């Protein structure tokens, strides 16, 4: 147990996952060394095997995954040959895990505190009373509101950002030597993310805990890690000290990751004053049952332009989209299409009105019928809206597939499950285009995709807009995407529009205080960004606290 032994030592680790009775390589011989108190960032696209590797560092594999080669040592203990009992003794006590979705990883049937004290009590580290007191202390250190009381709530009674911090507290409960953070802020809004990042960084420093921080967001990892390891399809691309890596990435892949955020469309000429907008949302109020969600929302979308609607989850972005499509008739106000009032309920709209407004969804996975072939999926709107059949229909589908840059002969008969995430999203685009609409609502279309793939989708959308003079309403919470693609921006908060205008004005001060908060909360590639921001705002004035003060 000398200090020279690294805390984690993985050598030549190969991981395999099973699909259809065969084992496929997920991780192809990766080495990983972690010293005590060190934070290692693990970065790569989804499917690069980051999470699998992170779990393997705990000696744990999910069902259908196995470690086929290599060694995993924790503090000199070989985790691959250790008995189940030995591993259980380490897990939770010396090695802890923080999952991506705290909402799913807390047991809904038990109070937070009961789950918090379970580790220490079961491992015999502390008694229940002592562990509870310690839990409250940790909640306070992590700046959770009402630290004395919050632990006695059920998970569904606590917000996502707070749950994520409570989970970090739970991981800390036995004062482990190592914590694996598996994308702990990916599911959070930018303003909430800062809060969680700051809390995690503080507490890891305070207890000198070593950590493996898994994420696909470079800017986040730049704030958290001492060292960064980049993975691509199961292989290590490069490992370097954070500052070195950011300043001078050596590999092409790493450089391309860095370059993603550089995509930006040229500015379009201003809208001619007095022209009729394609879609105009006028003083719309809406409610789910008796709960009001939108208040007096108004904005215009002009031909051939992209309007980005930004805001945090729950701000009413998607609800506005539902009002425009007629899925949720507004309680007040109206939607105009080309200067004509649309019936509020989609069932009362004509086929042509329906055709003009199409939608692309966030989760291409669930938005495509898994039992229909790509050809059938795209052919349906072609037949329904345009009345094409037989050879004409097939020709149109092929043309659409070419437009989304997929080879028709190769993809026509495939099922959605045989496509990658980015390809599925392209099919979603083709399906919307099949109706030959004027106006397309893109609801967080890139947020489930990796940065490189997302960029491809954004470029495709931009090209289609130029070719077909489409109008987009682009719903997103990612300000980098807004910067890349939009012409106008609408900022929403709590069901209201707080600011709207051309993109350039939006990204130039002065702006509305909330827009400012959103903008300044987007992590930047500078490793000192979080430190500086906290110094500027003060630790008690970040995230939800700052939002609440408005």
């Amino acid at each position, binding site marked *: 147990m000398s200090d020279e032994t690294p805390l984690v030592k993985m050598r030549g680790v190969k991981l395999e996952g099973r699909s259809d009775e065969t084992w496929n390589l997920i991780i192809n011989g990766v080495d990983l060394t972690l010293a005590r108190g060190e934070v290692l960032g693990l970065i790569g696209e989804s499917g690069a095997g980051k999470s699998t590797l992170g779990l393997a560092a*705990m000696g*744990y594999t*999910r*069902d259908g995954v196995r470690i086929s080669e290599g060694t995993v040592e924790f503090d000199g203990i070989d985790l691959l040959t250790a008995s189940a009992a030995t*591993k*259980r*003794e*380490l*897990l*939770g*006590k010396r090695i*802890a*895990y923080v*999952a991506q*979705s705290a909402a*799913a*990883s*807390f*047991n*809904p*049937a*038990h109070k937070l505190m009961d789950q918090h004290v*379970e*580790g220490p009590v*079961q*491992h015999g580290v502390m008694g229940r009373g002592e562990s509870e007191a310690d839990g409250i202390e940790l909640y306070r250190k992590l700046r959770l509101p009402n630290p004395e009381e919050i632990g006695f*709530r*059920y998970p*569904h*009674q606590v917000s996502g950002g707070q749950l994520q911090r409570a989970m970090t507290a739970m991981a800390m409960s036995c004062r482990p030597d190592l914590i694996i953070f598996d994308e702990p802020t990916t599911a959070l809004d930018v303003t909430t993310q800062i809060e969680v990042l700051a809390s995690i960084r503080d507490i890891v420093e305070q207890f000198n805990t070593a950590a493996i921080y898994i994420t696909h967001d470079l800017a986040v990892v730049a704030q958290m890690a001492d060292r960064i390891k980049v993975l691509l399809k199961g292989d290590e691309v490069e490992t370097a000290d954070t500052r070195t890596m950011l300043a001078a990435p050596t590999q092409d892949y790493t450089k391309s990751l860095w370059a993603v955020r550089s995509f930006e469309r040229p500015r379009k000429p201003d809208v001619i004053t007095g022209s009729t907008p394609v879609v105009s949302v006028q003083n719309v109020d809406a409610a789910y049952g008796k709960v009001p969600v939108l208040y007096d929302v108004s904005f215009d979308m002009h031909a051939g332009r992209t309007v980005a609607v930004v805001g945090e989850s729950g701000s009413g972005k998607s609800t506005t989209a539902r009002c425009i499509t007629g899925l949720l008739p507004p309680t007040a106000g109206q939607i105009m299409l080309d200067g004509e009032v649309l019936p509020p309920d989609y069932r009362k709209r004509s086929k042509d009105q329906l055709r003009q407004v199409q939608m692309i969804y966030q989760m291409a996975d669930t938005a495509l019928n898994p039992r229909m072939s790509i050809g059938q999926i795209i052919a349906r709107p072609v037949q329904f809206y345009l009345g094409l059949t037989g050879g004409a229909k097939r020709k149109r589908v092929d043309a659409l597939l070419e437009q989304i840059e997929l080879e028709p002969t190769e993809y026509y008969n495939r099922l959605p499950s045989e496509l990658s995430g980015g390809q599925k999203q392209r099919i979603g685009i083709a399906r919307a285009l099949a109706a030959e609409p004027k106006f397309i609502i893109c609801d967080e279309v890139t947020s489930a995709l990796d940065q490189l793939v997302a960029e491809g989708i954004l470029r495709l959308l931009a090209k289609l807009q130029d070719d077909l003079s489409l109008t987009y309403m682009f719903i997103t919470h990612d300000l980098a995407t807004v910067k890349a693609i939009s012409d106008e921006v609408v900022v929403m908060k709590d069901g209201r529009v707080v600011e709207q205008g051309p993109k350039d004005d939006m990204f130039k001060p002065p702006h509305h205080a909330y827009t400012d908060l959103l903008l300044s909360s987007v992590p930047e590639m500078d490793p000192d960004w979080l430190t500086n921001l906290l110094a500027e705002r003060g630790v008690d004035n970040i995230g939800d606290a700052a939002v609440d003060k408005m």
Partner: protein
Amino acid sequence: MGNVLTIILQRLLLGVLTLLIVSVVIFTAVNLLPGDFAQNILGQGATPDAVASIRRDLGLDQPPITRYFDWLGGVLRGDLGTSFAQANFASFTGTDSGATTVAAQIAPRFANTMFLAMVTAAIAVPFSIILGILAALYRNTVFDRATNIFTLSSISSPEFFLAYILILFLAVLNPIFPSLSNIFEGMAFSERLEKSMLPALTLTLVVTAHMMRMTRAAIINLLASPYIEMARLKGLSPMRVIVKHALPNALAPIINVIALNLAYLITGVVVVEVVFVYPGIGQLFVDSVKIRDIPVVQACCLIFAAAYILLNLTADILSILSNPRLRHPK
């Protein structure tokens, strides 16, 4: 909590409404039975006059709607009517033992049935749940397979067959329990229990498979959830992961299957009653159908329906209560 109370009240009202509809169905169905009590009792020598006279005495000459509302009104007042057979018997012998009402006929039999159902439930429910938990814990092992084979073979065998096997092994070859369950009023509890043991064990074999397999399936269904992975990564023992983390979230389907099986124990045990000569409500029901003793048949049906509705209602409410989101709203 107000939320939950509203739901419970809604369910209760719905239950009452269901029972009302069921009462119409019962009444119609029973009246569709071929022949009636008067023809049945008079047999071959029935003269039209005699039949008419008995029908008049029993009110069978009234139109069905009138009879339905008379019956329903009686039921609402707690009067299930008079047993045709007992009334007839009393008028022949000139004695009125006071046991001519349907209630007096059914009450002791129903108490016996409830007793057997409770004894069975007390054995079968914990047994099945523990077996289900163990099968989930040792899933895909020899134990799991053996448990599945055992419970599935017992549910697939006819009840009388199971009953005779148990009699053979537990009453004839090893005289542990009596093979006749002729319990009567005033019997001591311990003796009652002893006499009910074989029918209770037979019924346990019949209902275990369903409950055990649902427990196993509901738990295994949850094992891929992130919070189960989290529990494992906290270094908890496999038993604790299942009992403390999976089971509380699997309760709703398990409770529903238990309720269905308990309802079966109250309503569907005629065969077992016959084999063990157990004086339960099932035998009374079958006998009454045979002689067209309509008030008794109707009352039994109504009790069976009420048992089903009440047990499912309880299951619904317990399932709701097992969900912390409803128990503790934001």
